[in-house]
């Protein structure tokens, strides 16, 4: 049965990619909120924020990319929920296929659609004056971290996708994830925050990831932040995957 895992996953991924190309609005709405936040912060609040770096858009972009990914994965939960509700998930599960391919297809689609949204946001940032001195390796490292972050959040998104009772329930889990970058070093340096908030901001995953991407974009050495960032991503990925699989097995047994 697993002999067909790759073939079945490819067929099912092709199907969910078609969903995306036929409802481009999901990619546009995924990109539009982060772009609006970016415009607001760069052109309205940014003038009053002292980050110590020359260009605020350069400072801001890493956090905006994480917000983009967090809002993108809520559509993954939505698509999975719709498959559960319509019964097509059960149809796939009753076919002689590699069953886990159904989930993997959603996960791969999530990564691809998130990366398209990320590319759109980076394009807008370039128009707004974002510049990077990063070399090819640094860009690849940024892409790698973003893919890892997307995978981690996607496996978390699978859980509400499988268990939600309503469309709103399926996508609501993403709100705290979208909000998390606001209490991090994404928008302002953490030094200005009061004690407990600062402690939270400095020890939550977004700050380490944002600092790492910011250093990579600036062509700076990344320091220990990259290991903390990777540890968070891999940690969330493993926890998300394990709980998603437990949820999945409960659903089909």
């Amino acid at each position, binding site marked *: 049965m697993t002999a067909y895992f790759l073939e079945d996953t490819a067929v099912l991924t092709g*199907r969910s990619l078609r969903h995306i190309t*036929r409802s481009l609005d999901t990619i546009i709405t995924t990109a539009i909120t982060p772009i609006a936040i970016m415009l607001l912060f760069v052109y309205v609040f940014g003038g009053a924020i002292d980050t110590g770096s020359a260009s605020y858009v350069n400072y801001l972009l890493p956090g905006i990319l994480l917000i983009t990914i967090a809002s993108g994965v809520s559509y993954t939960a939505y698509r999975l929920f719709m498959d559960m509700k319509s019964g097509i998930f059960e149809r796939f599960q*009753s076919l002689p296929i590699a069953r886990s391919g159904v989930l993997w297809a959603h996960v791969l689609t999530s990564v691809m659609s998130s990366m398209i949204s990320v590319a759109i946001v980076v394009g807008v940032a370039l128009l707004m004056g974002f510049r990077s001195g990063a070399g090819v390796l640094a860009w690849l490292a940024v892409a790698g971290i973003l893919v890892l972050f997307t995978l981690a959040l996607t496996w978390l998104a699978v859980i509400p996708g499988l268990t939600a009772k309503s469309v709103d329930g399926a996508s609501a889990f993403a709100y705290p994830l979208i909000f998390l970058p606001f209490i991090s070093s994404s928008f302002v340096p953490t030094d200005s925050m009061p004690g407990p908030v600062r402690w939270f901001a400095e020890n939550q995953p977004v700050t380490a990831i944002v600092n790492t991407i910011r250093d990579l974009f600036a062509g700076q050495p990344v320091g220990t932040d990259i290991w903390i960032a990777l540890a968070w991503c891999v940690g969330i990925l493993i926890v998300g995957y394990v709980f998603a699989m437990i949820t999945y097995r409960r659903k089909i047994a």
Partner: protein
Amino acid sequence: MTRSQVQGPAIHVQGLTKNFKDLEVLRGVDFDVARGSIFALLGSNGAGKTTVVKILSTLLNGDAGTVTVNGIDVAAKPGKVRESFSLTGQFAAVDEILTGRENLVLVARLRHLDNPAAIADDLLDRFSLTDAGGRKVATYSGGMRRRLDIAMSLIGNPPIIFLDEPTTGLDPRARIDVWEAVKELSAAGTTVLLTTQYLEEAEHLADRIAILHEGRIIVNGTLAELKQLLPPAKVEYVEKQPSLEDVFLALVGDDDANINADATGKE
């Protein structure tokens, strides 16, 4: 995918139980379905019909008892069993964003068949969906969705088909189309297990009927055997008025031309 030469019943269920937490849904269900027959599982809402179908189709595990489909134990070899049957669930499980044709091609590819495009075209033709094949399923009527749903279940010619309430929510015209499809399948040698809450449907289609009530099969037999359970019929003279269904079908027409018109026209 080939019709198995295995002897014995197509479906064998013995002592099947299933609890959801404290709720005893199935309390020892026993029945056999002979190869090539149409078997109707009749019961009111909540009787456990869907639970039986889900266990037969490896979507749920039973708590106790033996279940074999096409001679294969569903608990021991679920992957093998899935090659023997096809499931048409309670709600038309079709992909609304894809076209009808793409839905068929998708299933044919997942069943690893050669020439998915030809299989899709053939089924679109058989189910009078050729003209609608290039449209998104979201634009289909309920009857067209159900026809597509059943067409998707026929891909790969599985020897056994499970139909869970195939006509619930359909209009009379679409219901008759589904009945015709079921009869054709059976004529071609496919074993059909269908669940229904409509007595008329079981009476019309099934070779054998079992009534599932409070988690057990309380009767199981042919229509004639079931009728003998009650006192013999007495003769009464009643003026035969046309039923509303007769009127409806007479007015909207009852021929094949109308099936095609339904598929292509009104949406």
